[in-house]
């Protein structure tokens, strides 16, 4: 059987599976993004959903079979991911495991780490969270102050992390902590840990988000003891590993398990919504609105073209890193701005939010706009992305902050 034929069959199977298994109406609000997961009900449902997708072979299809993957070429997983999106399937819950911790472990982890963690990431048996940001150090991640002090076969962790997505549900955390005694040694003093969460000395407090719901947590470490073999890489190599992890997180490096972890609105959906609001024949007549929609459609097209162009060697020959590095900034800012336009174009309807009968599409666009900030702030803010692009793509001198 030819490769293309096999892939076509796979696509058909994936479409059929998602058509049959995608839940129609679960009776409660399904999160748009893995960062919106708040209630136990949402968590339980999504955990079960992810396991089913994995069991069906549509998650981790390109990961090694030794650790629960499908051992297929990447194109298969891409097809499966697209099929899930097309079907309007719920998101994958274990995003931090699937899309950044997993690929990192497969990339630079030990055999023991791969054997211990990868399968459970895919099955959602073990949920991962990320302990990078701290109350006093967010963008300036290299200055993180949480301490890991070696004591025999353990490290003793003290300090606090914050904005921990799924912190109250997680079984493990990728933790960046300071193993060096000198408080001002910055990057060089950091080490990287694959830390258990459900142990004595670690507690989480949910934080209320701008949407009014509870979501991410502040995470406290009060002398928590974790085995020394939780450390990934050597002591003091944590910064290097964290930077590599962020490349997976921002999509600048491939190898993710796949499955969509964010349900993105599209300009087509937005236009359909506006046509329904317009009533009559659905014509969009307002010239200013039309002009704004042209911008939105052009920018959306540009993003798709950028992605496709980054794989066409002659068209990126002079600066191969540029398109992957601008992707996060351009995409997340686009989503924020499109959702903002979608709410403002609802006129007086824009006043209503989720739960009100008068809200357009149950407040989806208002909710999507507010949630869009999770991507323009999380994973390195847009301003920090601009520093990175300015320095690493354009070759400009480092920011004055003295990093």
């Amino acid at each position, binding site marked *: 059987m030819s490769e293309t034929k096999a892939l076509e069959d796979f696509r058909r199977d994936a479409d059929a599976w998602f058509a049959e298994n995608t839940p129609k109406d679960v009776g409660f609000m399904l999160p748009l993004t893995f960062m919106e997961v708040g209630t136990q009900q949402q968590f339980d449902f999504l955990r079960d959903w992810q396991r089913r997708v994995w069991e069906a072979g549509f998650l981790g299809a390109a990961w090694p079979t030794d650790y629960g993957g499908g051992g297929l070429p990447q194109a298969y997983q891409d097809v499966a991911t697209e099929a899930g999106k097309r079907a309007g399937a719920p998101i994958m819950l274990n995003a931090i495991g699937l899309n950044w911790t997993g690929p990192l472990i497969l990339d630079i982890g030990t055999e023991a780490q791969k054997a211990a963690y990868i399968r459970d990431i895919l099955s959602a048996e073990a949920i991962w969270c990320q302990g990078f940001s701290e109350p006093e150090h967010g963008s300036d991640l290299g200055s993180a102050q949480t301490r890991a002090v070696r004591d025999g076969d353990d490290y003793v962790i003290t300090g606090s992390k914050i904005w921990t997505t799924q912190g109250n549900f997680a079984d493990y955390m990728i933790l960046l902590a300071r193993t060096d005694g000198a408080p001002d040694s910055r990057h060089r003093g950091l080490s990287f840990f694959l830390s258990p969460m459900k142990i004595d000395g670690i507690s989480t407090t949910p934080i209320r988000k701008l949407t009014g719901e509870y979501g991410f947590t502040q995470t406290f470490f009060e002398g928590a003891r974790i085995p020394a073999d939780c450390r990934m890489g050597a002591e003091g190599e944590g910064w290097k590993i964290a930077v590599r992890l962020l490349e997976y997180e921002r999509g600048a490096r491939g190898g993710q398990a796949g499955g969509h972890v964010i349900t993105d609105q599209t300009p087509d959906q937005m236009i359909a919504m506006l046509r329904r609001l317009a009533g009559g024949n659905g014509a969009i007549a307002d010239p200013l609105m*039309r002009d704004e*929609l*042209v911008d939105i459609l052009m920018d959306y*097209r540009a993003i798709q*073209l950028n992605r*496709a162009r980054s794989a066409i060697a002659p068209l990126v020959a002079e600066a191969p890193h540029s398109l992957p590095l601008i992707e996060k900034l351009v995409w997340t800012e686009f989503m924020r701005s499109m959702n903002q336009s979608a709410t403002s174009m609802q006129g007086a309807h824009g006043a209503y939010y989720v739960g009100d009968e008068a809200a357009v599409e149950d407040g989806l666009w208002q909710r999507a706009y507010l949630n869009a900030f999770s991507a323009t702030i999380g994973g390195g803010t847009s*301003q920090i992305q601009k520093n990175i*692009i300015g320095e690493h793509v354009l*070759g400009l*001198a480092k920011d004055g902050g003295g990093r």
Partner: protein
Amino acid sequence: MSGALISIGETEADLLGVATKFCAEKAPIEAVRRWIDDAQGFESALWAEIVSLGWTSILVPEDAGGLGMELGATIPVVEQMGRRLLAAPFTAVTASTALLVRVGGGEALLPRIAAGEIVTAAPLSTPFMVKDGTLSGTVGLILWGEAADVILAAVEDGNRLSLIAIETKALGTGALKRESLIDDTRRSASLTLDRFDDFTVIGALDADVVGAHQLDRALLEAADMTGGARAAVDVAVGYAQDRVQFGRPIGSYQAIKHGLVDVHIGAEKARSHLYSAAHLYGTGEGEVSARMAVVQAVKAASEAADRAIQFHGGFGFTYDCDAQLYRRRAMLGAALAGDVRQHRQRLAELLLDE
């Protein structure tokens, strides 16, 4: 599969490689400055090299001795010329060739173009009036008109529009007059005729052909501006790396750094739209992709060169600073590409109504 929005063929990729190298080598900024001071505005020897590379044959049909390719194939060449501010009648000749192919009836001219003769076209929106079989009036914005061997123009007879060709050696002295353009790296002329009858009719012009020709020209200008946008970003980045104020390179300040990232992203978007248009031009998706390429190129080139001037400080206000060359070339480009507002209005119709 043909469904891709963007792709590049092997021939086009080769052309891009050769054009990138050629334009960088042949049009260093000192040469550009030299051409600005030259009356003709370009070097005949360089034009001969361009012709010998076969670039003027790209659009010429095979039976007339050319390669018979689509307009999209010329995009890499025009982009790289725009990037280096290279002065040559290439874009004008390319647009004229495409026009002759569209109209038909230019069999005698096409082999001459392949051989390097300069055929340029007056804007079709400003026809000469026909009276008793002769032409009178003045038409401007004829690119490289003084250097041209042949000028194509629209003529209006009653309500019939036709395309005609005029051999410039048949013109009286003073008929062609150099115009003062916003862009010093290019040349244009006005042509004044008074009961002139020494012209050849090429064929009838209908609204479709006129519209298609205007879009051809707009797309070529988009390519020139997309190259220019890249170069303007690079020029500004270079200065931001070197210039030190308050003890630090100015590029370390975010007001500069983030501004440069914004225009860099604009230039990347423009390039994606451009090569999508080059790929899709002539298909059902061609018009949308071409108009998007034009709108984004105007925006990217204007903003990049605008910031390039500002980020050079006082030096940016001088004629010696190259930033103005890109800004002014993009101003001409935008004018030649047609009003951006109209492109946007048409895009709204295509995307929202049809």
